[in-house]
């Protein structure tokens, strides 16, 4: 027995799902970092948009697919590699502070 179709306009979710199916896009295959990188290097895009894409890339560096690994793949890995058992908080402020110390701007 087939499910009875609801009357009226399709919901926003149904519309979105239909649009994705028509476009032939597998959402699991979409890599947000690649999209951001494409925006960042596209000279036709507005400059502020490119800057925002760069900021997003810097703030959210790509991590390894394996959840057991905390290693950051991109070049913006924490400047000072410290053992995890030293109780170093894993937050944006701490990561950025280590980068600042490494670049010597604190001298």
């Amino acid at each position: 027995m087939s499910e009875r179709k609801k009357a009226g306009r399709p919901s926003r979710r149904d519309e979105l799902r239909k649009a994705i199916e028509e476009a032939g896009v597998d959402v699991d295959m979409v890599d947000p970092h690649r999209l951001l990188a494409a925006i960042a290097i596209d000279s036709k895009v507005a400059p502020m948009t490119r800057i925002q894409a760069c900021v997003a890339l810097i703030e959210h560096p790509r991590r390894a697919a394996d959840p057991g690994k905390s290693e950051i793949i991109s070049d913006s890995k924490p400047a000072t590699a410290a053992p995890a058992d030293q109780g170093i908080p894993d937050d944006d402020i701490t990561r950025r502070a280590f980068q600042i110390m490494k670049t010597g701007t604190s001298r």
Partner: protein
Amino acid sequence: MDDQLNPEMPIVETYRGVGIHAFQSQERIDSVVKPEIDQVFTIDEPENLWQYVLSAMNAPEARIWAGAKLTAMIEQRAHKRLPLLSFTVAHVRAAIAGLSSHWADPSAYCSLFDRFAHREAAPRPAEYGRALEEYFRKIERDRLMVCGWRSDGNGKLRAPGDTATAVSAG
């Protein structure tokens, strides 16, 4: 970042990601420096970090770490369009200037720029002060030798082609 014109203080060990300077006893490192680095990890208020950075009573390593953390906070606040603080990144850099370079004070655990505003810094034992001065003097001497300066045999260095000017070779 190593820089010939502004040589860095040598690091003897890294504690929780923060480099600990040479020219101090292991006892001081364990009883003073490491607890102060731990303390900075617990400070989250920018104003409290700023007061910490300003005080020459605190260990240079902890002040540098506090300064880096404060700089990161200021950057994040600017990015999030939060209200400005009463101090800027330039103020923070000025407050910790010289702490990890040849501007470190040989007679106290602070920088030479701290001496006029803060006289409360912990004194550095004379033997460590002499070792610190000798370390940076040797770097300066090596740098001059690379630039063509030569020893005149009397413990003095002479500039290339200059027979009148001489500086102590240390």
